[in-house]
């Protein structure tokens, strides 16, 4: 049975953070995904019950946002940016290569083993690292078709992978969703402050200082 007492306690914690309970709906839907993997009918009912809304009201919200999934995704959800800049820089080629390599087609399609799902995503605010791939919303910068195929192979084989800018390893989809719901997992001190492109201007400013 999903939504045990601990989950209900978490829901109450989220609702208490806001001046008005309904503001907790987006966090609650993330919480549902952390328990169920996606927004199940039972999850919609759970949110409705917690907030005193109808299931229709919750469903209307859940279906508006692309991060809420209506079917199960993989333990590792892979997003390839195919907005213009990433697409031009190679995102289209990366996405095409992954579709073929994984044998999946269509948004959020999952591999037979349930390990990996694939989505083409919109701009993820990392354009200076194009082309960009996300795994459970961690950054994998400057990808090529080959590096992306090796990445998903590791994910399917259960080999730990390290984001370019993020924690030391990628957590599961459900673990990520619990953080997004608003429950910190204690991993902020992992990883670097910034990647090389982020620091490029600062580095060159230092060189300008040196030439004075």
């Amino acid at each position, binding site marked *: 049975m999903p939504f045990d007492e601990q989950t209900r306690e978490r829901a109450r914690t989220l609702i208490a*953070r806001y*001046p*008005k309970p*309904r*503001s*907790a*709906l*987006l*966090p609650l839907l993330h919480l549902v995904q952390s328990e169920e993997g996606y927004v199940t009918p039972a999850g919609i009912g759970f949110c409705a019950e917690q*907030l005193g809304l109808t299931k229709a009201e919750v469903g209307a*919200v859940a279906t*508006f*946002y*692309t*991060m*809420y999934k209506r079917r199960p995704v993989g333990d590792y959800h892979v997003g390839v940016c*195919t*907005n*213009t*800049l990433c697409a*031009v*820089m*190679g995102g*289209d*080629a990366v996405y095409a290569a992954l579709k073929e390599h994984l044998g999946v087609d269509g948004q959020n399609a999952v591999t037979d083993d349930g390990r990996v799902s694939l989505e083409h995503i*919109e*701009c*993820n*605010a*990392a*354009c*200076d*690292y*194009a082309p960009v791939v996300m795994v459970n*919303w*961690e*950054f994998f910068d400057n990808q*090529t078709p080959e590096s992306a195929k090796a990445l998903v192979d590791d994910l399917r084989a259960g080999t730990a992978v390290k*984001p370019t*800018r*993020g*924690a030391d390893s990628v957590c599961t989809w459900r673990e*990520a969703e619990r*953080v997004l719901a*608003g429950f*910190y997992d204690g991993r*902020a*001190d992992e990883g670097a*402050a*910034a990647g090389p*492109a*982020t*620091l*490029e*201007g*600062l*580095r*060159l*400013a230092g060189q*300008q200082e040196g030439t004075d």
Partner: protein
Amino acid sequence: MRLTPVLSANWGSDRPWTLDGYGDYAGARKALAMDPDAVIQTVKDSGLRGRGGAGFPTGNKWGFIPQGDGKPHYLVVNADESEPGTCKDIPIMLANPHVLIEGVVIASYAIRANHAFIYVRGEVLHVVRRLQAAVQEAYAAGILGGNVLGSGYALDVVVHAGAGAYICGEETALLDSLEGYRGQPRLRPPFPAVAGLYASPTVINNVESIASVPAILDKGVEWFRTFGTEKSPGFTLYSLSGHVTRPGQYEAPLGVTLRELLDVAGGVREGHQLKFWTPGGSSTPILTAEHLDVPLDYEAIGEAGSMLGTKALQIFDETTCVVRAVLRWTEFYAHESCGKCTPCREGTYWMVQILQRLEAGSGDAQDIDTLLDACDNILGRSFCALGDGATSPITSSVQYFKDEYVAHWEQGGCPFDPTAATLFATATQGAR
């Protein structure tokens, strides 16, 4: 041209995301010793303009909040960075979340808010962690909570993760989303300063705007105004991406030019020439090599027929098909249109159909006219600026590159090799 790291100054230091690595909240301490109205006046005097795209004076926004009205006031930080090309707020929050929290303390105190929200897009897990950890750390250090830095002022801050919707970067859609609804824009007036979150007076500011405030309080208005121009004072993050030798974040005074930035960044990738660029994301009309010397400030870029936007400089060289680029952006707007207003919802859908035909080489001159007519019927005819933004790439690309549209139907297909434009193109195709 001199780079001027202020926001980015500590990004290379040891664990800058921790309180120890950040510093002592000197700007907030100064603000809390002042009258709130004096804090607002300081930010007004600095001339700081909103860094989220519109360039509205930040201090004026704060000044619009009615005081003594008996209602709770709210500060909402717009950290839903998702305008294509824009990638400055995410690195700020990843490396330096405390500068944002310090700005939140100052802004909330100024507008007499006791509750602030950081609405961060959900698709950036480690950024969410860094924000959550910094807020926890700030509570533990007495920077947030019932007695902020011993001043008696109370402030609670909630980190709120979105769920994947570009429209929630629009401030009134963000408010609806934060209230637990579908993110759809509201009709204005009333403006959020009067009836925002929970129908109470609310200030919504971009991450970079709020992060710029602590230094202004700490170092003063005169210091801030030594950067930039009279009407666009201060420093800002210019984000270079695409076909440039060294993509990245370049912090410089407002009013520098793309030519100057490219000089520092090693120019367009080797062996190639600039074809077109966006000054501030995909919603700002594209510009070309003839605009390399236009100062990148709000006024000059406006006079050049575009907008400074988020200073997201997406650089495309001659290997890029402009029709493909515009089609992809239009698909984005069609996907992200919330559906509330008919011109935007229907218009973006049909423009995608026409652009697909054009890119495939089966369009004709009538299609260009239809596209421009559709743009005319979208621009200024919807609640928010998403529809307006959707017309920018189309009208500007037809203005500068109509020949390329024609070439598609004359040749019966796209004349470009997409492989040549990629990061991993071979040397003969033109790698960097």
